[in-house]
């Protein structure tokens, strides 16, 4: 087994398995620790710029990756017209840039206030580093290897599916540029980090809020209790 066989054929499985097992474990044994650990209460102004740009950027980019992953044909079909390709590429690039600016602002914010230092764990520092590398390599790829939306669907997506289908096809990514390779490996590493950091907060998107009634009442047991009256 070559080094790249290991990195692209085995490492992803290690990350995925650990992510699934550990996330479940953490959820079952320690629900208390599931939290976005908001620090807005200690610092409000810088968070506005950082958190908003970061989240809208990263969620947009993430959605694009997922759409490409699940329906790659849709991207290839969309890109048939050059104009539409430009629109998609520009949108993607802007979102990526937002994420990059956002994460930089968040990192600066973390270390510019002594109050925030108190609530910044070592895991936070690792997470910021890994997220920064991820977004940076993503943006660099967009700059130097143009029309990524098309070749993502052509090369990366088939590779990702080969992982899902348990027949990893390392040849698909073996010859991609180093930046792209780092981007892919770092993504798996992020998956590995998920259960060990505050990233778990993205799994608890409270979408149920939209249809749940406003008021919540919990009963111990509710039954008719007939008394002496």
């Amino acid at each position, binding site marked *: 087994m070559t080094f790249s066989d290991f990195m692209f054929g085995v490492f992803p499985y290690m990350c995925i398995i650990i992510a699934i097992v550990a996330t479940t474990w953490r959820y079952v044994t320690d*629900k*208390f620790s599931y939290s976005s650990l*908001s620090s807005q209460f200690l610092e409000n102004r810088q968070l506005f710029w950082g958190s908003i740009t970061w989240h809208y950027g990263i969620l947009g980019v993430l959605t694009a990756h997922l759409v490409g992953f699940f329906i790659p044909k849709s991207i290839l079909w969309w890109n048939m017209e050059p104009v539409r390709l430009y629109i998609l590429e520009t949108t993607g690039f802007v979102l990526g840039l937002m994420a990059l600016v956002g994460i930089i602002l968040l990192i600066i914010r973390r270390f510019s206030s002594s109050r925030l230092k108190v*609530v910044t764990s070592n895991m936070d520092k690792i997470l910021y580093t890994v997220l920064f590398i991820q977004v940076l390599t993503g943006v660099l790829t967009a700059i130097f290897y143009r029309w990524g939306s098309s070749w993502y669907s052509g090369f990366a997506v088939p590779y990702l599916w080969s992982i899902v289908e348990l027949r990893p096809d390392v040849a698909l990514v073996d010859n991609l540029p180093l930046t792209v390779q780092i981007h892919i490996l770092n993504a798996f590493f992020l998956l590995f980090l998920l259960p060990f950091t*505050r990233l778990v907060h993205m799994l608890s998107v409270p979408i149920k*809020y*939209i249809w749940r009634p406003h*008021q919540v*009442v919990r009963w111990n*047991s509710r039954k008719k209790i007939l008394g002496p009256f």
Partner: protein
Amino acid sequence: MEVRAQVSMTFHLDKCIGCHTCSVACKNIWTDRKGTEYMWWNNVETKPGTGYPSKWEDQDVYKGGWEPKGKSIGLKVTDKFRGLANIFHQPHLPTIDDYYEPWTYKYSDLFDSPAGDDQPTARPVSLITGENMDINAGPNWDDDLSGSEIYAKNDPNFAALSDSEKEALFEIERLVFFYLPRICNHCLNPGCVASCPSGALYKRGEDGIVLLDQNVCRSWRFCVSACPYKKSYYNWSTGKSEKCILCYPRLETGQPPACFHSCVGRIRYLGVVLYDAEMIEQVASAPENELVDLQKEMILDPHDPEVIAQAEKDGVHFSVIESAQKSPVYKFLKEWGLALPLHPEFRTLPMLFYIPPLLPVLGHVEKGNYNVDVENYFGSLDKARLPMKYLAKMFSAGDETKVREVLEKLLAVRMFKRAEQVDDIDKAEVDKMLEKTGLTPEMCEEIYRLTALPTYEDRFVIPPMHREYVADALMGDPYSFKAEAGIGGFKDRPERGL
């Protein structure tokens, strides 16, 4: 009609001496942990004053509570879609600086400083960062500062007054203040519960206590904004919100909450009331001038056979119904009409009711003597140092007649007892007052007893909480110690997540 039970409260403001024993009792039990130092689940404010957090009553800034939307109401701070869009940065969240930065003193300096000519001092250090800090705000920072240009003058309730009326209040002869102890109101239409995207907050069906499940809280922090009374707090260390739990572990063992138990002025009353849960939305969406009356109307008569029958059908234990029949809250609120909700216009239907204070009257200095000139006994209400408008802004959404009604009754009881015990006033005058206020001599006597001479058992009529029905399901290790078990996290240590 759907009958539910609610553990409800009354605070008699004339009796509060502003000693803060309640606040300290609560703090020592519940909020002496890291991340909670700044929280005062019970706090006592000086009115007029800005309160805690600063100017909390100004909902243009804090966006707490509900506002009319169409035929119904909606939360001010968020709605279901805005809530999700604003989740990454919540535009109206108060920050620690709206409360105050908690601190301690470096006492070790008193011992460890090298010998010298000066006394060593213990410098204040932040309980958040551990760094030296200057203290410029703190708990009860405006305590007793009723004439203050910085604090009292910025009281949001003065919005109802004209500038000249406001100016007049700061004349030295008019200076006046009273205390306003506050805890979570355990509302019937709580903003905190409605705003939580995760559904972490809930009202207990059996007794109406509003709790926050910390295992479900994900730090979206909307409850902090949506509670107009600012009684849901964010623990910056654990990343979870926390709030007053009405000492439910004490209630479940038949003891009143710590702030009630320790109250030096004995101003606090606790008892269960029955209410009609089907009316909640209708009452909360009513026009402002009907809010107080409708909220009273939804509280049901626990002696009414129809109510009792329905209560039993709806699962209210008969022992709780019995308890509701003896509730001092029911007496003050419904039988005597002496209690009013704080800021009903926030529309959360608070279940803590206040008996407003009889204020000292205005006087003038003549030949070195301080004189008050009141022609008739009710007349003194017009000469009260704080205008009725101010009290009305706090306790009846601006309707002065409601506050006046209560104060007239309080005066009538005083005069009735004075005529009886000191015998220096005209009995006919007293009879006129009773007639006007609708009180009977028996009622006056009862009000007097429950106000001035109540025993522990009179003040706290705690319904049986019937934990035997759920004990097995919920019981963790009953012998676990502080900080080994979380509030609401029965098995887990309350530690900050990774």
